[in-house]
């Protein structure tokens, strides 16, 4: 199977939109649900996802977003209650779907009883901000520069690059394999990309989907 997922994102605000753009860059198939007409127009201009205009708690709207084919739904509006409601409704409509809800407080971990995962973007943002404030030379493994992404990527069985030596794989310009398997050594030309192992990759957004294709099929 390919590594590409069919993702629904409820809420096209800053968090929802950035997430959608990131996923689309990586070659995933994204649909956004957004009720504010003004934001819908803004998203449409950016050309990253199909947009359904409407209220994400409305089952009819969730269905229009293609719930029956989606692998994941992420409710990323600013309201925890609304996000949980969307995830629960989605699970009801499509029991197999993976659900991700954005929460507002650090204590929200207990919500994982209802959803598969929770995200607390403010905390992640705070970590990056703290790193910047302290100004250490080393940064967390996250969005460290303006556009460059540093990612930990697991090589999938059967992917084009799986089992190949690094020197035998031609990554597009703008991509660099940084670490050896599971991050013990810096990658060398004789490093083998083993299926199931994880590698630190530095990649420019434009070629991220190609890199994901090579490493995850």
């Amino acid at each position, binding site marked *: 199977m390919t590594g590409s*997922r069919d993702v629904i994102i409820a809420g096209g605000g800053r968090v929802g939109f950035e997430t959608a753009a990131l996923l689309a860059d990586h070659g995933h198939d994204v649909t956004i649900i957004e009720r504010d007409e003004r934001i819908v127009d803004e998203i*449409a201009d950016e*050309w990253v996802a199909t947009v359904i205009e409407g209220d994400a708690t409305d089952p009819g709207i969730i269905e229009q977003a293609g719930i029956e084919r989606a692998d994941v739904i992420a409710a990323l509006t600013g309201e925890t209650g609304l996000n949980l409601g969307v995830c629960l409704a989605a699970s009801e409509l499509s029991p197999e779907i993976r659900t991700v809800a954005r929460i507002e407080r650090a204590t929200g971990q207990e919500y994982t009883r209802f959803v598969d995962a929770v995200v607390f973007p403010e905390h992640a943002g705070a970590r990056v901000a703290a790193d910047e404030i302290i100004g250490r030379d080393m940064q967390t493994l996250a969005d460290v520069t303006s556009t460059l992404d540093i990612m930990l990527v697991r090589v999938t069985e059967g992917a084009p690059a799986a089992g190949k030596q690094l020197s035998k*794989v031609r990554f597009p310009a703008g991509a660099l394999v940084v670490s050896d398997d599971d991050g013990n050594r810096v990658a060398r030309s004789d490093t083998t990309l083993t299926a199931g192992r994880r590698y630190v990759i530095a990649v420019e957004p434009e070629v991220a989907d190609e890199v994901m294709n090579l490493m995850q099929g």
Partner: protein
Amino acid sequence: MDGSNRSPNAELGLLDATMIGMGAMIGAGIFVLTGLAAEIAGPAAILVFTLNGVVTAFTGLSYAELAASIPKSGGGYAFVREIFDDLPSFLMGWMLWFAYMIAGALYALGFAPNFLELLHVYGFVAPPDAVDALAIPVVDIALPVGFLLAFVAVLALVALNAVSTAASGSAETVFTIIKVGILVVFVGFGLASPMFSEAEFQPLFAEGAGPAAILPAMGLTFIAFEGYDLITTVTEEVENPRENIPKAIFLSLIATVIVYLAVVAVAVGTLGAQGLAEAGEAGIATAATEFMPTGLPIIQNGGALIVFGAVFSTLTALNAVVIASSRVAFSMGREGQLLPSFGQLHHRYGTPFVAILASAVVMLGSVALPTQSAGNMSSLFFLLSFIVVNVAVIRLRRERPNMNRPYEMPFYPAPPLIGIALNLLLTGVLVVYLVRTDPLALGLSAGWILLGGVAYFLLDRVRTPAEEGAETGIDMGPEAER
């Protein structure tokens, strides 16, 4: 998703997008098919191209609406995949893939006689009809030279695209300007030539056939208007796509109809429908050598410029459909509708290697077909795919009324309904025509669809156990991001 993304700054403007569409349409269709259309319809070939432009404009509206609201670069297949279930979307991809592959064969077959004509103009070989076969001493059989040339052309472009992504760059604008420029020269000299002033467009319709002959000729030449599907395969690279893609579709369509009209009028006016029909795939080139000035510096014969245009156009169009067909197969692989290997980039070359090779096999096999059969089959499959695209617009409007549509077609639902009706009519006429004249093409077409059905159910078998494995694979998602 594919090689063209390697140059991240290649932002295409409205002009570039329009040129991509025009480049695909004004490519080979006009050079290869004018003679064949004249053979069927007589001087009414002029009407044939105009009416096809009108028919296809309705589907153009559907493409514009879909392309503006579904931000994907997969062309018609991507849109249909968005709204239809597995089987119909598979069949759509399967048909569109075939349409492009056969179009590749058609362009290769159009390239060969024009290339021979070019060599002939400079005296390297005998006139095209005198070069019939090339004896191969080793295997002791004689192969037609045209077939060999077509075969080699496909092989070369497939090899180029399989190991390098350079050929899919945005040189298309320059190519198209060269092609259109050459045609403008052709029209200019043609209108000025004494042959045109005594042009004979009467009787308008071919003898014995009457106006009814227009319909099969439209069916055959429909492929000359497939270009806007290509525009929608590069939407991601176009700046402000929600405005520029619909505009590019209409602009390229209008410009193409005007160019076709002028070129066919001049060709019929100078060479006459009869002469055009006899020249077949090299119709425009033959017409040009009749009236272009001779004794020019360097190129000697002015007609050579037009012949060069034909060779150049057929080759660039062939290149475009090699890329387009592999893109369709690649997308289908990505969606799990063909074997996953179709959707993977080659680890060394960064190209959709398997998709290109698979497309190559069908293309190479198809150059053995007569040109007319290739045109018929390709047109048939484009007609069928365009019907599905029109249905997709209606279905999306009904099932997803709240979907954001930056471009909404006027007078909905009339355009897609008219589009479906007209495309169905042409399909029907083409099928009836094929039953009478070209059962081989019809049989192969039916065979391809049957093969698709078999492939679909076999893949379904293969996929069902694999799917379960993939489910557990999803759990690694958050881990990989973290």
